[in-house]
């Protein structure tokens, strides 16, 4: 089935747009049908009925749902997601402050994930049914089964017990007097400002939450890499390489690894939604103060504009991650460049 690659990319982008539209309709309807009047909540219990109804008209709550949705999306596309009830500021301003912290955490977690899981998957496949395999499989099984909050708390416990002054909450040491920089990513900003002490502190703070966040993914990706390696090892062209006397090392690293990294990448894209979910837990345990903490708070306080924005941004995270995965797979797998179907 030959297909125009340009068309394939368009279809893919179309799917993503559709995802965002359905997601936004769902959360929008959900946020409007909840019991409780947003105008009443915004004004507090002391407001008079006249004040409430005036605000209702001002917020457009008296219009029909489709009208409200269209005007909300119109404003959202121009970067106006409404006001947050909690912070009394535009939601976009809150997001601008909190999203970078989460991006930094998730990026580092993903790097740890692949740095640990791919070699582990390769090793367990290579030493199949030997002790390395058994230990590696047990490790990935625990990674998949342990609740991330339990793992996070255990890390804190161990750090508190054995490394007394290792930081277990927050993003950096406030005593250092670093106000942040243009990107919002502590690791980058500190280097831009030339503050090595801040960089080290940020790295220390980041280590435990990033490891905790990566654990579930490490388990998944190790398992998938292992089974992909084993499956591809039996393929004809690999057996041919072996019969020509190509060393095992070359087979693994030049041929098998490339072929076997497609499955874990695809899974990574799909699992990104649950990675964001786990970030909610990890950020809470480590008082990270990122986008997920903001979202959790918004949900708890029924801050509707903020909740809607948080769900939309989570969806956007998922889509961006999957676009990156698509590009990576296209780079790795030449077949995909010619016929991207599905």
């Amino acid at each position, binding site marked *: 089935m030959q297909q125009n690659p340009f068309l394939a990319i368009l279809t893919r982008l179309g799917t993503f747009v559709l995802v965002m539209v359905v997601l936004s309709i769902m959360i929008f309807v959900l946020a409007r049908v909840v019991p409780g009047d947003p105008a009443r909540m915004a004004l507090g219990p002391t407001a008079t009925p006249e004040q409430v109804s005036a605000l209702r008209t001002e917020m457009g709550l008296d219009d029909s749902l489709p009208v409200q949705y269209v005007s909300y999306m119109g404003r959202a596309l121009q970067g106006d997601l409404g006001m947050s009830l909690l912070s009394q500021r535009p939601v976009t301003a809150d997001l601008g402050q909190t999203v970078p912290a989460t991006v930094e955490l998730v990026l580092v977690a993903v790097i740890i994930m692949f740095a640990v899981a791919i070699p582990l998957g390769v090793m367990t496949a290579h030493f199949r049914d030997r002790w390395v395999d058994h230990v590696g499989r047990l490790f990935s099984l625990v990674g998949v089964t342990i609740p991330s909050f339990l793992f996070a708390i255990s890390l804190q416990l161990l750090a508190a017990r054995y490394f007394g002054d290792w930081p277990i909450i927050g993003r950096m040491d406030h005593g250092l007097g670093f106000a942040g920089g243009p990107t919002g990513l502590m690791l980058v900003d500190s280097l831009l400002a030339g503050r090595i002490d801040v960089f080290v502190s940020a790295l220390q703070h980041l280590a435990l939450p990033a490891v905790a966040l990566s654990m579930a993914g490490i388990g998944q990706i190790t398992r998938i890499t292992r*089974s992909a390696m084993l499956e591809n090892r039996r393929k004809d062209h690999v057996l041919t390489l072996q019969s020509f006397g190509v060393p095992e090392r070359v087979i693994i690293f030049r041929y098998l690894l490339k072929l076997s990294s497609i499955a874990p990448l695809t899974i990574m894209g799909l699992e990104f939604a649950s990675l964001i979910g786990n970030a909610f837990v990890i950020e809470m345990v480590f008082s990270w103060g990122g986008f997920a903490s903001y979202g959790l708070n918004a949900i708890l306080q029924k801050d509707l504009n903020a909740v809607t924005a948080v769900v939309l941004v989570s969806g956007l995270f998922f889509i961006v991650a999957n676009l990156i995965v698509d590009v990576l797979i296209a780079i790795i797998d030449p077949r995909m460049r010619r016929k991207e179907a599905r």
Partner: protein
Amino acid sequence: MAEVKMALDGANKDLSASYMMWYRFSRNPAAVIGTLIVLSAVIFAILAPYITPKPEDVGAVVNFRARHLPPDATHWFGTDKVGRDIFSRAVFGLRISLLLVIGVLGISVPIGTVLGLAAGYFGGWTERIITGLTNVMLAMPPLVMALAVSNLLEPTLMNAMIAITLLWWTWHARLIYAVSKSVASEDFIEAARIAGAGPMHILFREILPNCVSVISVKTTLDAAFVILFGATLSFLGFGVKPPTPDLGSMVADGRQFMPDFWWEVLCPGAVILYVTLGFNLLGDGLRDMFDMEG
């Protein structure tokens, strides 16, 4: 594993397929351990009022003289901030977790299966709509959606369950769709159609039996995920109302007293790990039994 295969290849060629599957399952230590763990958890949950040392501690009991006791012979998991026996509460918490599994999977697995079967067999617009819908649903961050749904309605276990169920069927639909689509092009389906079988017969009598192995493995592994998911929700404060014990909220409660009274976090946590590990081992065992790849 290797010796099992050899034994099977040798003398037992004429044994029935189901016996061979059972043989493979029973000789797999991981599968047996998983089965034992799951069985023990189920038995504990069912018999909770009769076998726990202090079933009355499930309610709003306060016994300040016994608060924060470390684990010992009478309190296996120690006691919590108001002196209740953590072991008794954890066993009752297990009940909630397993109820959640039954509720969520009991609804979402049949829905996902039927939609997946239909999408794979009928093709055309049915296929396009169902796969489109699953792709969209898979992009929703499950935890975020569940939190939003359950809290905007009201943070109860029932709402949390509804929220999880709404999202869960998609994974099954996706998986069954793949199997159903490949089976649908087999000759015996064509033969059934020529013999005059209706779509209901083909879907449920011809295609569904080929999906049983996939469904059972996926459902078993999913049980672990649902437990994890439910525990995470209640850890974040979106679960059952106190004082009803729930493993996730017990961990959350214990976290306030962390470095000193570690058992209040680690013991309920270990119970979660015990069950999820059991379901995972059992699922992997089933997968080996059906001789599936991946």
